[in-house]
């Protein structure tokens, strides 16, 4: 069975500081990996995804994540955060063939001025 662990439930950082949100997964098969962001009282928005190919994937708003198969990790990073990045971030895994997503419990990123 697949599972996702997000090690930090809350991450407070100051504006313009770097941030890393950690995600580890377990699976016996090849996986697709995703990061979703959820703003208050809203649904989930896809931030970035790894399907195959380059292990480093980037989003349009400066986030990046690196797929590390040996460490079964897919950590999310941003070199300089903005107040507007304050949200909850969910890491998810899918084996692709089945289609259902397995989510972690989420990490609340709080960016302070």
């Amino acid at each position, binding site marked *: 069975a697949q599972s996702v662990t997000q090690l930090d439930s809350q991450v407070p950082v100051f504006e313009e500081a770097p941030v890393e949100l950690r995600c580890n997964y377990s699976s016996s098969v090849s996986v697709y990996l995703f990061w979703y962001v959820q703003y208050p009282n809203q*649904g989930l928005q896809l931030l970035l995804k790894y399907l195959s190919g380059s292990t480093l994937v980037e989003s349009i708003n400066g986030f990046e994540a690196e797929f590390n198969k040996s460490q079964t990790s897919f950590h999310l990073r941003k070199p300089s955060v903005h107040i507007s990045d304050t949200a909850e971030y969910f890491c998810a895994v899918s084996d*692709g063939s089945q289609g259902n997503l397995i*989510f972690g419990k989420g990490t609340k990123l709080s960016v302070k001025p």
Partner: protein
Amino acid sequence: DAGVTQSPTHLIKTRGQQVTLRCSPKSGHDTVSWYQQALGQGPQFIFQYYEEEERQRGNFPDRFSGHQFPNYSSELNVNALLLGDSALYLCASSLGQGNTEAFFGQGTRLTVV
């Protein structure tokens, strides 16, 4: 493109009642998945509909049922509501069963009193 739309946005029901939630997928998508997100938790997969049939199901009781219509829209029905069914219910649409990218709606906030 309206994206994934869900209705209603909020709902209050009494224990023992039945509820129906609705979802219209993103234009061009033929697969609809439903997720339950309890407060402070990540979304949990309920079931997926493709070609008007339930193709996959998560660990939810039979009180949770669904339907997909020929226009790919979908309904989630929950019978004999329990207090623990209070959650944000998210609908996600995608193209085909293999999940390379799922788009989520804003969700329906269900409160059972």
